[in-house]
């Protein structure tokens, strides 16, 4: 922090104070910004589940403890740096010989030993608390009334299937999961291609999805809300556009949603919608997508049976609006380059009919 071109001896006490103030304020602002960044829907600092609260607690313990350590070290360092030995009448400073003063020697050893002891204690506190949090968040859920959801990672979207012993009671959807509040949800995670990672910061830490090796984790939302999740393991070109949403809602609302998702897609009710269905079934759409209740049964792309009930398209890339849907169908490679959906040039009439049909799939 030395000011260039200004002789050192002219640095005054007041300019030191200004620099300290500056440093102090910038540190405070950064800390405040970090701690108060709570309102976001994707934040580990706004926990909404038991595991996330523990992770948050550990994070705060580490932040406060280590900030205190940092401040203490800085204070000692600065005191040492700025404390001058007194200079008498332009005489050169005499070298200080450490071994001449037995009292000072003892003081130094005492300080060093207690600093080491304190360091060991602090590290042990962090070690033990991190171990306790680690084993707590990995323990099995206490509640028996669990919901099991199978999530398959694809480049670059999430395939979601609600498990049920009765096959007709299974729900398949994509990129948007509804879960009941206050009930543990077990996620069976598997990948179809490369390693992905399932991360909903408000509910839990990250869990990897590994091809050929199913991994289970569980989480629970304690209060309703929409929690954004994100792939947290670099998985290729569009890793950043591989998001999903967890909608936590009260049990009755969840049941209503589940019942609506069990239904087949509604039959087209207008002329335009039925033309749209024909377009869907005769164009490349049918090769990859599934719409329950029609001939479209592809599993290479997201299930579109209730696509209009979802909030986003392209795995959290765009809001689910008619305009975005139109752009996505015509040229997904401009919106999300490298994704596996090919461009689908078509006439305006066909596109409008197709959009009418897709938007009727509530």
């Amino acid at each position: 922090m030395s000011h260039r071109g200004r002789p050192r001896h002219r640095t005054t006490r007041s300019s030191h104070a200004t620099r300290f103030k500056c440093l102090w304020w910038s540190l405070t602002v950064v800390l405040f910004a970090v701690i108060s960044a709570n309102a976001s829907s994707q934040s580990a600092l706004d926990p909404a589940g038991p595991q996330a609260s523990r992770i948050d607690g550990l994070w705060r313990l580490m932040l406060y403890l280590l900030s205190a350590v940092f401040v203490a070290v800085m204070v000692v360092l600065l005191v040492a740096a700025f404390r001058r030995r007194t200079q008498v009448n332009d005489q050169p400073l005499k070298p200080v010989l450490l071994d001449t003063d037995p009292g000072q020697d003892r003081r130094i050893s005492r300080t060093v030993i207690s600093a080491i002891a304190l360091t060991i204690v602090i590290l042990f506190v962090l070690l033990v608390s991190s171990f306790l949090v680690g084993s707590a968040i990995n323990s099995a859920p206490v509640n028996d009334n669990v919901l099991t959801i199978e999530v398959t990672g694809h480049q670059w979207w999430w395939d979601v299937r609600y498990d049920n012993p009765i096959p007709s009671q299974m729900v398949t959807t994509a990129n948007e999961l509804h879960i009941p509040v206050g009930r543990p949800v077990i996620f069976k995670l598997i990948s179809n291609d490369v390693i992905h990672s399932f991360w909903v910061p408000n509910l839990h830490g990250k869990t990897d999805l590994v091809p050929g090796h199913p991994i289970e984790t569980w989480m629970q939302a304690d209060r309703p809300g929409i929690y954004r999740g994100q792939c947290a393991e670099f998985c290729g070109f569009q890793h950043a556009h591989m998001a999903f949403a967890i909608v936590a809602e009260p049990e009755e609302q969840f049941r209503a949603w589940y019942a609506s998702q069990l239904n087949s897609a509604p039959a087209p009710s207008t002329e335009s919608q039925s033309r749209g269905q024909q377009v869907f079934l005769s164009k490349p759409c049918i090769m990859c997508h599934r719409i329950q209740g029609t001939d479209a049964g592809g599993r290479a792309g997201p299930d579109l049976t209730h696509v209009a009930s979802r909030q986003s398209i392209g795995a959290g890339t765009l809001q689910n609006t008619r305009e975005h849907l139109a752009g996505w169908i015509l040229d997904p490679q401009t919106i999300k380059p490298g994704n596996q959906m090919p461009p689908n040039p078509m006439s305006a009439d066909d596109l409008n009919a197709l959009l009418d049909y897709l938007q009727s799939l509530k």
Partner: protein
Amino acid sequence: MRYRPTFIIMLGLVAGLSLGACKREERGFRVQPPSSTTIDSKSLTDLQPGTQTPPPEIKNEYEENAYALSEGKRLFSAYNCNGCHSQGGGGMGPALMDERWLYGSKPAQVFATIVEGRPNGMPSFRGRVPDFQVWQLSAYVRSMSGNSPKDAAPSRDDHIQGKPPESSAEPVPVKDTSIPKP
């Protein structure tokens, strides 16, 4: 500052080796089909008025492009070609990794087989699969019998491998047992 000759030689070696890290090819995500000639209509017979003049051969540039070949491999299972051709070994449909080509082995003929379908089982994918993907698929299908450069052909499988990878397939002599030539 003077450099020793060994240092300069090492520097040259490192520079030479790092050439290997250069991009091998571009990945085109938004592509035009490699051939502007779309094969819209097929003649059902070889008979032509006057002298036989074979049409100019269509080259499939994707056959030398590793990304296109691996996309072809991905599409081969995504579009369930496996359902009948079973990883190229054949099942309900004919094998694709041997030397027999019932409807011709040329890129354009494979393209036509996919787009038009063939009697006794091969469905027509016209309108269902975009042209550039058909070209990727036909490039991949030809790589199964070793008909594409080894450095471009896929060398591994995402799932359990039922056969040696395409990159180590030996080129097999083509026996066109063609029935009608397109």
